[in-house]
């Protein structure tokens, strides 16, 4: 990105981001929230003829130790307004604190309508208090989908209240309440003329984010709000009572897109002109979109749900997932294929379409109905092959466009076999060096991972970077005769062939030669700190690492020590490391397979035991005695 900024306004946004980052590391003991009260009320705005949700969010803060500036931030967007803010310090209104309003910048989103209101609340000394009240309006109830309970600081008491008038129909679904002290009460309040749902939580601690953990909807206590309908005396509104309603809204956004069919057809024909089969045509279109359309995420009001026109994506050569899916669909349609748009929630989200809500999905892909089979094409996965699926969408429910009535299906689940990382080595010992001839192959997401790294590197540095990667960054390793398969052909596996000279790989003590059997030592020291780690661990994809090494035993030499076999079969993973002597050669076989990429916290101790055994295997050396 070419960046050219001269004035200081962006500092304030940076500051806000910094404050967020700081929040997580602050000593939570210094600030506590004695009371947090979040109240939501459905109201009918007669003037606008719409149902709105009024939110009053009150939070008190207490300084327990030393002076602190508490960062306060509240987001809003095209559908949510901040109507009023009241700031009190030590019981008095504090008008000297002026909230700032800015664009909220996120690295992974090119532009969104999310804006941020932020300021710092000064708590000058121990015992000082602050009270903040935000009044907000959600102008369309279908955007009111979730209520999360935890805060960045310890909360003594949290009260969440939802006032639902008789004319309003909603469903509240509770998630991750286990392990939290949550009291729920539902009663009719005559004064409010509403059913009041009250959730009271005591002694609530913040949830610390951990690397590679499940998405917040899997771990944080929260409510999924399904706003179904409103029936007033002289008016009624239908939101998402069933999935039909949600689909109807989605479908209304994608029909009659007024694409320039002629431009799209001309491009589709140009892309597929050298293909001979239907399947090749499909692949050509998919790979062209992968290669030529840059992914740029937009979340701008309705544009967050409505794809850009396909011919516009084609002209701009960039788009978000919706734009890329739309272009893929239209190019395929132009060639006579049956292609559809699909809405999908990635594995970051705990819900499926049994709960109609805008929070169920976060992604759009293209479905292709071809020769009795449904294929899913996600061109945002830049280096994955046709009919290969990224872990994040595998097995996920998918809502497929089908005129007035959707099709609900699932993306196929691929096994670890999709993601091969296979290394075959033939080695000889020459003095203190090991010389190897190596063939290495990657497929599926293993290939995608390597190619993503490679294409992020400047062209002139790619070969060196690849060699360094293969040499594990070891200065004693020289890679020669390096060749690769066509890195631009994602339809094939990625293959490299090379020779490796590993200097000082062999330690010689008298007549004995010592060396490590495994150069890469994958998953070495991959042990969970069970005292620190509180959440499940999620690998990005299923691993399938295989190695076959054959080392020629020097003439007259005898193998005196070999690392002991480990063969561990668990439900979620497999570890096999076998070294044997066969036909004057040392044969080493390794299989490290992660079948289920989510390692549950409950299995950490077994994992640690098994991977400690692997670590010990790696630590053992082969010993050969020469004549």
């Amino acid at each position, binding site marked *: 990105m070419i960046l*050219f*900024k001269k*004035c200081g*306004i*962006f500092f304030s946004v940076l500051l806000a981001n910094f404050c967020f980052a700081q929040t997580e590391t602050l000593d939570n003991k210094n600030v506590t929230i004695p009371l947090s009260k979040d109240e939501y009320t459905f109201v009918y705005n007669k003037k606008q003829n719409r149902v709105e949700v009024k939110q009053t969010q009150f939070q008190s803060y207490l300084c327990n130790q030393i002076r602190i500036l508490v960062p306060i931030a509240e987001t809003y967007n095209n559908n949510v307004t901040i109507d009023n803010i009241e700031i009190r310090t030590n019981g008095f209104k504090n008008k000297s604190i002026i909230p700032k309003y800015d664009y909220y910048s996120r690295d992974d989103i090119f532009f969104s309508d999310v804006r941020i209101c932020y300021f710092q609340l000064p708590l000058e000394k121990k015992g000082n208090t602050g009270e903040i009240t935000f009044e907000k309006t959600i102008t369309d109830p279908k955007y009111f989908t979730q209520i999360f309970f935890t805060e960045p600081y310890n909360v003594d008491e949290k009260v969440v209240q939802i006032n639902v008038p008789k004319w309003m129909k909603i469903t509240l679904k509770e998630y991750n309440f286990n392990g939290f002290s949550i009291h729920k009460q539902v009663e009719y309040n005559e004064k409010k003329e509403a059913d009041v749902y009250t959730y009271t939580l005591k002694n609530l601690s913040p949830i610390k984010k951990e690397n590679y953990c499940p998405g917040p909807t899997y771990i944080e206590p929260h409510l999924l709000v399904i706003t179904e309908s409103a029936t007033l005396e002289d008016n009624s509104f239908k939101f998402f009572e069933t999935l039909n309603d949600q689909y109807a809204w989605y479908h209304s956004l994608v029909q009659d897109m007024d694409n320039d069919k002629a431009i799209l057809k001309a491009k589709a024909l140009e892309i597929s002109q050298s293909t001979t089969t239907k399947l090749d045509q499909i692949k050509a279109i998919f790979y062209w979109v992968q290669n030529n359309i*840059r992914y740029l995420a937009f979340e701008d009001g309705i544009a967050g749900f409505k794809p850009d026109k396909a011919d516009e994506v084609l002209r701009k050569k960039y788009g978000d997932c919706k734009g890329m899916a739309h272009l893929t669909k239209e190019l395929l349609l132009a060639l006579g294929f049956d292609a559809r748009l699909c809405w999908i929630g990635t594995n970051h989200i705990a819900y499926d379409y049994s709960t109609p809500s805008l929070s169920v999905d976060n992604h759009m892909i293209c479905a292709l109905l071809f020769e009795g089979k449904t294929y899913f094409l996600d061109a945002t996965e830049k280096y994955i092959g046709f009919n290969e699926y990224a872990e994040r969408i595998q097995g996920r429910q998918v809502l497929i466009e089908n005129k007035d009535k959707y099709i609900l299906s699932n993306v196929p689940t691929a096994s670890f076999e999709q993601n091969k990382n296979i290394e075959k080595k033939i080695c000889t010992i020459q003095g203190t060096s090991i010389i190897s001839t190596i063939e290495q192959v990657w497929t599926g997401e293993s290939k995608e991972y390597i190619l993503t790294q490679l294409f*992020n590197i*400047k*062209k*002139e540095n790619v070969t060196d970077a690849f060699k360094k990667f293969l040499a594990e960054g070891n200065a004693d390793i020289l890679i020669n005769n390096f060749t690769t398969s066509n890195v631009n052909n994602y339809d094939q596996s990625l293959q490299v062939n090379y020779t490796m000279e590993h200097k000082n790989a062999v330690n010689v003590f008298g007549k004995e030669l010592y060396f490590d059997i495994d150069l890469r030592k994958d998953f070495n020291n991959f042990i969970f700190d069970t005292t620190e780690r509180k959440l499940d661990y999620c690998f990005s994809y299923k691993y399938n690492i295989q190695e076959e090494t054959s080392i020629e035993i020097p003439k007259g030499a005898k193998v005196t020590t070999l690392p002991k076999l480990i063969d561990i079969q668990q439900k979620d993973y497999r570890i096999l490391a076998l070294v044997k002597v066969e036909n004057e050669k040392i044969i080493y076989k390794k299989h490290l397979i992660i079948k289920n990429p989510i390692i549950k916290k409950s299995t950490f101790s077994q994992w640690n035991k098994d991977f400690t055994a692997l670590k010990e295997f790696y630590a053992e050396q082969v010993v050969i005695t020469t004549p």
Partner: protein
Amino acid sequence: MKLLFLKSVLSFICLSTSVFVFAQSKSERLYKERSEVVRKEIFETKNPLFSLKDVPEKYKDESAVILGKSIEYTMDKKSSRLLIVSGANNGNRLAFYTTIREKVKINDQSALENYSSLEYNKKMDRTRRGLTSKSYNESQTFIGVKIYKPNGKVVTLNTDEEILTTDSKKIQDGKLAISDLQVGDILDYYIRVEELIDVNNKIKGP
């Protein structure tokens, strides 16, 4: 009486709104006119620095090859003279133009990613206005982008596709995704920042 008052208030609001909208549209119109002048000055004036159309053989395997680059600082003397006439300030009213232009061949995905968008402060107005005086401190940024396709086609980017991340009366921040940019293209872009500042005994240099 009440109705009359209400009417007056409404008329005032309508008038204020229309004046504001008019001011906004006038400001936009002036910006566009100036933008066009800058574009012609930079893109339509022959500049031997940017005449190179092909990548020298020795650089063909590089990620991005800069075919031409210039950074130019100029001071507009005409604007400086205005100060003497106006007499509004004891210092100097200076107009500084900073122009960065770069012509670069995009040879791989990494370069494409690096040159895929522009982010800039489009307008900034920190001018202090008193009853009888005005102390200028404002700047405007103009951008222009051309893409030379390998088949000889030249695409001039419509900078109206920009997104304003800040859009207030005094500050505008812009963001522009470079459309139709692909590996193999030559990107020719400029960023011109025009500042008008009242300075007291301070001479700003590059």
